[in-house]
């Protein structure tokens, strides 16, 4: 494609030729002809050689706030120079350049490579894709420009931050709760051997005891002792109202951080953690333990978006049947715009669950972005206080989480209710 300069040069050349012809002036005509020749000669060389792009990331998964090191290797695979080539690596707008630059102007010889290295800061959780790589080939004299892409993407997941949670603050009033895994002498999911039994269809092949099969001729499977772990249920509110506040500080962001931190804390103790995210619909991860579950939970939390208006009662109605008896339930919600929260909490408490409501203060988040008159703020605050008191009266432990408060600090409040 011609640049503005090329268009002006061509138009100028034609104009000079025409004017020169009109006034029979050789200088004008020859100047015009030379300008046209310049364009014609430059049009012989266009495009670039065969470019290969390879991107290396320092990690595929990162925690919010971490730095990502990116290296882009651009190689000229053709037998000719690339000419003046601007290489630009497209990065998600949520990420910020911390060091280096995601672009370079280069002119690679055949077979030559160039490395573009830069560091990105990832301030927001989510699923991101770096790429494609934009290439802009320029004529040396800036007469022609050609834009193209190398469709090379690198996917990256930014997990929510994990905050340290102190054990003392999460101690339950119920004995033997949150004590981690203990082996029971009953068959079930676990790690220690319990007995051999005959294979029944549906048993996983990995449990087949091949030695016993060789010895007896019948398929036998290993049964394990059941690990008695605490099943912990986390219900995260991702409704549209959870977006109140700034991009970095809002109830949903704080909710994801707390859910991730609690999950990390309990999974480290070999407890089973389940996650329910409700907003537009309900996404539920059944309780499980281990690193795989940890990764699943973080991945789910990374992709959470504020949308929908599903009430908590609908969630508890749908899930309470699956909850293990007496297991603790964490509800992370601002409790705004959902009149079913007290009923849902009452229902869970009635079923014998120990319910903790971690409630980011949405009014205070709103104050970060808009000015609320003092009187209105006081009234709204009082309404919220009443709502939380009602929840506490239902038998739940309620935590009023202020925007500037750390998670550990917030959990300390449990004692107050």
């Amino acid at each position, binding site marked *: 494609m011609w640049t503005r300069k090329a268009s002006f040069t061509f138009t100028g050349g034609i104009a000079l030729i025409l004017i020169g012809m009109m006034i029979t002036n050789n200088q004008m005509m020859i100047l015009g002809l030379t300008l046209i020749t310049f364009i014609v000669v*430059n*049009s012989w060389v266009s495009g670039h050689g065969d470019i290969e792009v390879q991107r290396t990331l320092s990690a595929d998964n990162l925690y919010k706030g971490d730095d990502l*090191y990116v290296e882009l290797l651009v190689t000229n695979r053709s037998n000719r120079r690339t000419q003046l080539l601007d290489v630009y690596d497209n990065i998600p707008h949520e990420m910020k350049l911390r060091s*280096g630059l995601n672009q370079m102007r280069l002119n690679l010889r055949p077979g030559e490579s160039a490395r573009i290295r830069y560091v990105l800061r990832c301030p927001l959780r989510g699923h991101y894709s770096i790429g494609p790589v934009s290439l802009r080939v320029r004529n040396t004299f800036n007469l022609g420009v050609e834009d193209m892409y190398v469709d090379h993407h690198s996917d990256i997941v930014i997990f929510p931050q994990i905050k340290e949670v102190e054990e003392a603050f999460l101690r339950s009033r119920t004995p033997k709760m949150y004590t981690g895994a203990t082996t029971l002498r009953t068959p079930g999911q676990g790690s220690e051997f319990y007995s051999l039994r005959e294979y029944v269809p549906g048993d996983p092949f990995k449990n087949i005891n091949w030695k016993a099969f060789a010895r007896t001729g019948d398929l036998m499977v290993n049964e394990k002792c059941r690990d008695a772990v605490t099943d912990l249920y986390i219900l995260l509110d991702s409704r549209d109202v959870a977006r109140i506040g700034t991009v970095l500080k809002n109830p949903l962001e704080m909710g994801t951080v707390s859910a991730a931190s609690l999950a990390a804390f309990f999974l480290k103790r070999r407890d089973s953690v389940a996650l329910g995210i409700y907003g537009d619909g309900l996404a539920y991860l059944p309780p499980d333990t281990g690193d795989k579950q940890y990764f699943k939970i973080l991945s789910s939390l990374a992709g959470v978006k504020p949308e929908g208006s599903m009430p908590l009662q609908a969630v508890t109605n749908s899930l309470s049947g699956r909850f293990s008896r007496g297991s603790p339930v964490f509800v992370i919600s601002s409790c705004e715009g959902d009149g079913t929260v007290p009923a849902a909490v009452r229902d869970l408490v009635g079923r014998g669950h120990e319910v903790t409501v971690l409630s980011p203060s949405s009014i205070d988040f709103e104050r970060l972005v808009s000015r609320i008159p003092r009187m209105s703020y006081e009234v709204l605050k009082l309404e919220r206080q009443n709502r939380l008191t009602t929840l506490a009266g239902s038998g739940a432990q309620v935590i009023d989480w202020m925007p500037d408060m750390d998670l550990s600090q917030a959990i300390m409040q449990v004692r107050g209710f």
Partner: protein
Amino acid sequence: MAGEVDPQSDVSLMGGRARTLHLKALRKQWQIITLQVVSTIALVWMYLEVVSTYVVNSIDHTMLFDSLESLVGEVPIGDWLIGSGRTGLARFYVPIVLGLGLGGSMALMAFQSPRVQQRIKLGFIVTLMVLLIGRLVLTWIPSMLFSWDLRAPSESELKTLEWPLLMILSLIILFIYLLPVIMGTRGIWGLSRRSIGWAIGFTLLFLGIHAILTFPLIKTQLGDWGSNLISLESQVSDPTVGIFGFDLVTPEQFSLILIAVLIMVFQESGFGVIRYLEYAYRLPESCKRDPEYVRQMDNVLNGHLRHTAGFLTVTGLVTMIALGFHSVLLEVVRTSTGSQWAAQVSESIELSLTYGLVISALLFLSLVALLRFFVPWQRVWGLIESMTNKQPEPVKEKEF
């Protein structure tokens, strides 16, 4: 985890000291200086070509100074400075050196701090004022004080203004004549796009005005003065300049092609330097120190130098061939048909005039442009480059 991006270890640092893309270092790089020198040479050469074609012995500054001297008396600038008494192009040698010096000084001033610039400008204005009215004030005011009489300056006192006024007028005349050189030099070395634009614009403006004034209708209206203007013949004479033994263009045409090509060399080199320095300036600190960026900047500058030499030479040659293409067409018509009509056409004066010349040149250029679709230039360039370039050493992979 996070830290600065370190310089890459696989790039050797020359002379044990890392090269960077800081402007201070980049301005001393040989490619940048070469481009600036090429641009300056093109500017001076273009100026000399223009003045030798249109100005010398026609409307040059020495003739203007002669007219001025005959009207108001001796011009206070020395003849050796303005080139009076010399013949031909030699009249311009010293003024060009002065213009280059002035342009260079202005470029140098552009790199001083605003405070220093302000002081220099103030000093210049004060000097100019002292030069203009200094002698008058020094004679007139003491005379009034001694005689204790408030009066207007006398004729003899006013005569002291004559020399400085003539001096300033002479300097202004020289400045206008040398404007392309002064502004061009300032633009090239002071990295000013506007100044380069001024230099080109002024040259084109001069050519345009000259073209209009030499238009036969207007020229006849200008009388004696108009007859002094040099106008090039519109009818093409026999070509004497060419390549590989083929005579393609007349010396006049060659001179005009040279002016056009030199304008482009000046423009592209001057703007190129500014463009690359701007790019380097905008790079963040870590990139300026990154040897990879330094290496690529070298590649880009070398490419620019190669293309400036190659493409603009080819442009000149193709223009020459295009201008000589009409004779090829005439020859083809003459030899291929042999009919009476063909002979008449081939001897037709229109074909030798500008119209025929330009149309045949444009026809040739169209054919050359169409070659793009028939000749695989990319492969040709690739072949040439692969033959001329050494393969670089393989880059050692660096792992995180």
